[in-house]
């Protein structure tokens, strides 16, 4: 198997927590991985991207070549479009629907969504509301991970195990909330992928 995932968002939104969870699940599955992160200046509210590469064979490049990503997973809708040239033909674009507006010229959100809908394989999910509904607003990134999970060739149970191991130190209630968040995201994608 091979999953090349572009993770995108805005500095401060915590995309690295998604990367860590996928990485942990991949390691539990004895897969090879490389994950390139953004540190430094752009973390200060700028556009950030992380390249996550998981494979049953050794991974060469730390960055995903353009035109080769299986998946763009974005916690911000406009940011999901910034890395479009990386998506392979038929790749999936999965994004949260909540815009993060910290610039003056943020485009009309409806136009952004229209643009996203031009790609046949897309999922737009209101992860923030889903997380709020289960009274766990901070789990919105895990909802996003759940939404991406059907498109990553790692077994569902391993994601759950990864979530357990990562949130263990925060108590069983937080673990349960995040598993719930994961499942809600996952089910949303399973129902909405065509």
């Amino acid at each position, binding site marked *: 198997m091979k999953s090349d995932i572009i993770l995108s968002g805005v500095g401060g939104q915590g995309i690295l927590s998604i990367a860590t969870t996928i990485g942990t699940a991949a390691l539990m599955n004895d897969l090879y991985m490389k994950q390139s992160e953004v540190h430094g200046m752009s973390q200060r509210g700028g556009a950030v991207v992380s390249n996550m590469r998981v494979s049953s064979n050794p991974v060469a*490049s730390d960055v995903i070549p353009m035109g080769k990503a299986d998946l763009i997973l974005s916690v911000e809708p406009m940011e999901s479009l910034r890395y479009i040239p990386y998506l392979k033909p038929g790749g999936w674009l999965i994004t949260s629907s909540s815009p993060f507006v910290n610039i003056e010229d943020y485009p009309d959100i409806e136009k952004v969504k229209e643009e996203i809908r031009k790609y046949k394989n897309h999922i737009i999910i209101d992860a923030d509301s889903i997380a709020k509904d289960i009274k766990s607003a901070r789990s919105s990134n895990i909802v996003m991970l759940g939404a991406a999970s059907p498109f990553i060739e790692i077994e569902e149970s391993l994601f759950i195990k990864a979530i357990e191991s990562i949130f263990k130190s925060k108590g069983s209630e937080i673990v349960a909330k995040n598993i719930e968040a994961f499942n809600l995201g996952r089910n949303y994608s399973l129902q909405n992928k065509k």
Partner: protein
Amino acid sequence: MSRVLLLGDEAIAQAAIDAGLSGVYAYPGTPSTEITEYIQNSKIAKERKLHSDWSTNEKTAMESAIGMSYAGKRAMVCMKHVGLNVAADAFVNSTITGVNGGIIVVVADDPSMHSSQNEQDSRFYGDFALMPMFEPSNQQEAYDMIYSGFEISEKYNTPILLRITTRLAHSRSSVELKPMREENKLKLPSDMRQFVLLPSIARNNYKKLLGNQIYFIDEAENSSFNKIIPGKDKSLGIIACGITYNYLIENFENHISPYPVAKICQYPLPDKLLKEFTDMCDEVLILEDGYPFVEKQINGLFGNSKIKGRLTGDLPRDGELNPNLVAKALGIKENIDLKVSDIISNRPPALCPGCGHIDVFNSLNEIMADYGPGHVFSDIGCYTLSALPPLNAINSCVDMGASITMAKGAADAGLLPAIAFIGDSTFTHSGMTGLLDCIIEKTPITIIISDNSTTGMTGGQDSHAFNRLPEICLGLGVEPEHLRIYTPLRKNHEESLRILREEIAYQGVSVIIPQRECVRTLERKVKSKKAEL
């Protein structure tokens, strides 16, 4: 043996600990910061009481490492590429002194300038100092090079340079660890004059260093990090340095190149190996993530029509390489049809909402409106982002400390008022010496040290200025009545306007210190306090 997931930076840190390090010396700088932070947070490093406190700047770091080496112990110095400019005096002389305990200097270059003001290539510095160098292609090699690097350092009596780039520093992969070695024992140099660089001694040491070059080359010729990977199609050969090797093999099925490849990760260049390789191939493409360092050497002064690379336009002259750029240079056709939609806006980094620097700039902008544009010299830190809209507050950022000295030069030239805007950490890094120049000459200058009690830009490391900024200024000779301290908050706007007006009117050295902790650092401290409870 255990495998762990580590950033390139973390692999370097872990390797140093495992190799019996006694101290790391560093000043923060993206993308090198995480090396030292890893050691600061390492349990075993704490148990062993390894030195890992931040240094005031890269020069003090490098010199402290030489001191630790003098005492027989292993030391590592870490910095970003421009830090090596600051440390250069000590760095270049460190090959003349040689080492007692091993020294590794880790320098993280930033091609494409993700978080930097230039993309200088540290391999030129290594060459200049006649120092052996490593350039890992992956996290495991980074680990292995540090682990064995200390031995090479001690064997040949020379510091070693390990050069990485942003991509490797901040990329995570699994690394296999080696057994942990004991620290060196305290031991004076066998030749007590080794570190005394009087001309008569230095000449001798330098001759020894020159004589050692053939051994350094020999190490590179026989290094397991430099190798030729055969390929059937000799119409082209590829020399891939460091991380570019990954970008190359990414383009081939099962990562097997049809062309012969020379993977180069250790310097000085193995000339025999490269001569044989170049002779064997009709053309040679050179891949380097940085300046055309190898390409220039192989070209020589008169060029070599076989050689392709950044100088021939087969690859871009600037910026980071990637698999797509390498594919293009190889003539591999790619279908990248999807284009970025033009409805997307740029999202540049910005000062955090609530940041104290913003309040200072709001006041400063209001005052400077009376004088017209072009009077504010600034420095490197979060506040540099004020060069962009909406603040548009500063007119320069060159290197750490240059705000004060540039404002001085401009004032000397008659451009008044001359304002310097600098952060607390940058001030202790390189601003204090410039302030002394101003005081000696009583330069008419207004220096704002925006004190957020942290090194914000690089993630909030402790600042050496903390709790001692006023005393430093007074000690250097700032007049007490022209040292003004206030809290930059909206409610103090009028007060700050008054202070600025009064000090700009003063025809001598004024230092204004707006003091309020970085909101991010504060937030993190509160969080970790909570976690402790």
